Every structure is written in structure tokens, then in C-alpha cells.
């Protein structure tokens, strides 16, 4: 069944249809909220908020358009909301450049280390760059779709992807060099 059909059924209160939509998009939703929020629990809460918000506003979804970008826009907003609320709670917000200004993470020897290094490198990027790179290189959305999701011009998406990639590729290349030396 198409996403749009499931969306219509979910809007009518069909639990199974909503469950199927959640199953289809859980991975994407959780990855984008994880990319935007540093804490995994916060990210999952944001993703859950996003799915429930999507259900609430399902009537506004245009079935002639792809469901993914519409949903991920809601996810990005849910993550931004949660980040704002968390920032209010935090007495000392983290400096975005703190990690970037320092040396690259310690050389890593395994995939878990690479994962950690990539997460740390992601955390050094501005939020919009993080989201843009993940949506482009991980989820495979086009620049135009990412522009719709993040509500920014396509040219800004290209620039964000470029700058975000540059930092992340350094981490990846560093890890590959280490593996070759190993």
C-alpha cells in the first residue's frame, strides 16, 4: 500500500495503517532526530512527538506529494522544539565550536570507534548542516526536497551539504588511514 493511502487511513483513525507508516519511517525519523540532538533519548522522544504531530495534522498532507519529506519536516521541527526546550533547562549550553577547535578524536580502531568519532564530528557542525548531510548522504533526498524539509533555499542546502561533508570526510579519511597503517 502506498504511503498516501496509509496516511489517509491513519487520519481516519486506523491504528494498523499508522503503525505501518511508523514502521516505514522509524529509521529515517530517528536518524534525523539523532543527527540534530546529541542525546539519543531526547532524539527518540522528538521522533515520537513528530509521529504524533504528523498524525494530528495528517489532514494537511497533500497526497499528491511524497510523504517522506512532509514527515521529516515535522521531525526536524520536533527536534528543534525539543532542543529549544532543553536549552532553556541547561544552565551552561555547550559551545558549538568546542570540539571543532580541538584536535580530531583519538584514532579509532574499530567500527564502534568510527561511529563515535562521526557522532562527535557531527556534533561540531551547526544543526542545519548536520540535518542536510544526513538527509542527503544517508536518506538520499534531493537538494530540493531537503530545502522543503528544512525550509531553506536549495542553494543553502548545497552549501550546508558541502561544508558538513568536508568535516565528516576528514574523520572518515583519518579512520581509513589508521586502518591502513594498522
Amino acid at each position, binding site marked *: 500500500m502506498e504511503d498516501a493511502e496509509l496516511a489517509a487511513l491513519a487520519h481516519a483513525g486506523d491504528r494498523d495503517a499508522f503503525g505501518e507508516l511508523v514502521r516505514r519511517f522509524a529509521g529515517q525519523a530517528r536518524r534525523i532526530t539523532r543527527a540534530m540532538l546529541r542525546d539519543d533519548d531526547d532524539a527518540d522522544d522528538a521522533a515520537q512527538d513528530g509521529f504524533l504531530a504528523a498524525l494530528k495534522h495528517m489532514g494537511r498532507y497533500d497526497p499528491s506529494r511524497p510523504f517522506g519529506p512532509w514527515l521529516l519536516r515535522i521531525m526536524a521541527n520536533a527536534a528543534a522544539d525539543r532542543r529549544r526546550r532543553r536549552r532553556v533547562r541547561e544552565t551552561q549550553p555547550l559551545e558549538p565550536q568546542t570540539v571543532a577547535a580541538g584536535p580530531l578524536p583519538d584514532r579509532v580502531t574499530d567500527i564502534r570507534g568510527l561511529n563515535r568519532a562521526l557522532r562527535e564530528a557531527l556534533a561540531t557542525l551547526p544543526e542545519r548542516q548536520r540535518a542536510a*548531510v544526513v538527509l542527503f*548522504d*544517508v536518506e538520499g533526498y534531493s*537538494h530540493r526536497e531537503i530545502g522543503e524539509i528544512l525550509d531553506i533555499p536549495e542553494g543553502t542546502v548545497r552549501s550546508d*551539504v558541502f561544508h558538513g561533508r568536508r568535516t565528516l570526510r576528514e574523520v572518515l579519511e583519518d579512520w581509513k588511514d589508521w586502518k591502513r597503517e594498522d
Partner: protein
Amino acid sequence: MPDTSPFDHRPDAELGSALRRALDSGDDAAFVREVLVAFDGLHAGAAPGQWWAVLTGWARPGLVAAMLLTAAAAFTLGVQIGRSSVQPMATTLVTDPLNPDSGQVAVPAIMAGSEAPNVDYVLAVALGR
């Protein structure tokens, strides 16, 4: 290092898969279950046993507002009725149809006329106006 031109339209498969691995949690099924529990919670709020409570909650302020409106309307109506009923009584009590100074048409004046009195005058005298 791969080409990082800002005009590169192609996703970077290597970076993409590395990032996917870094961001994946691997327990999507548990997450889906949690979202569905939240869905059930939302819909339980609309169950027949609950909507009555919601309506009752709405009814309380509605009843209070209706009572206040009724009281205000009754007060306004009472004031208006009071005004309209007091005015004719005062006219009736104060004026004397037999007293020429009262400004009313008097019986002697009607009787003294050479022509037949106007019906309105007769009625006015009879009603004391």
C-alpha cells in the same frame, strides 16, 4: 579524498553508510511499539467512557454562564417592566379630571359646549387622562 564540490549532486555512498551505521539504533521495533502505545493513549482519551467526562467538564462553565445571563436578563427585564408600570399609575393618581388646573379636559367644560363633544375627549375624561 572524494570530490567535495558543492555542485556534487550525488550522495556520498561511503560517508552515507558510515553515518547510517553511526546514527542507527537497531531497535526500531521497540520504538514503533512505544509510538503505538502513545497512539492508543490518544485514542483512549476519545473513548465513550471518557467523552462524557469531557462534555461534563465543558458543561460546568456553560451552566454558570447561562445562569449569569439569565439573572442579568431577568434583572434588565424587571427594571423595564417596573418603569413602564409606574408611569401610567402616577398619571392616574396625580391628575384629577374634575380639576380644571390639572390640564385635563373637565366634565363641566364638555357639558357647557354647544356642540356635541368629541368622543376622544369623553373617553379621556372617563379614563381620567
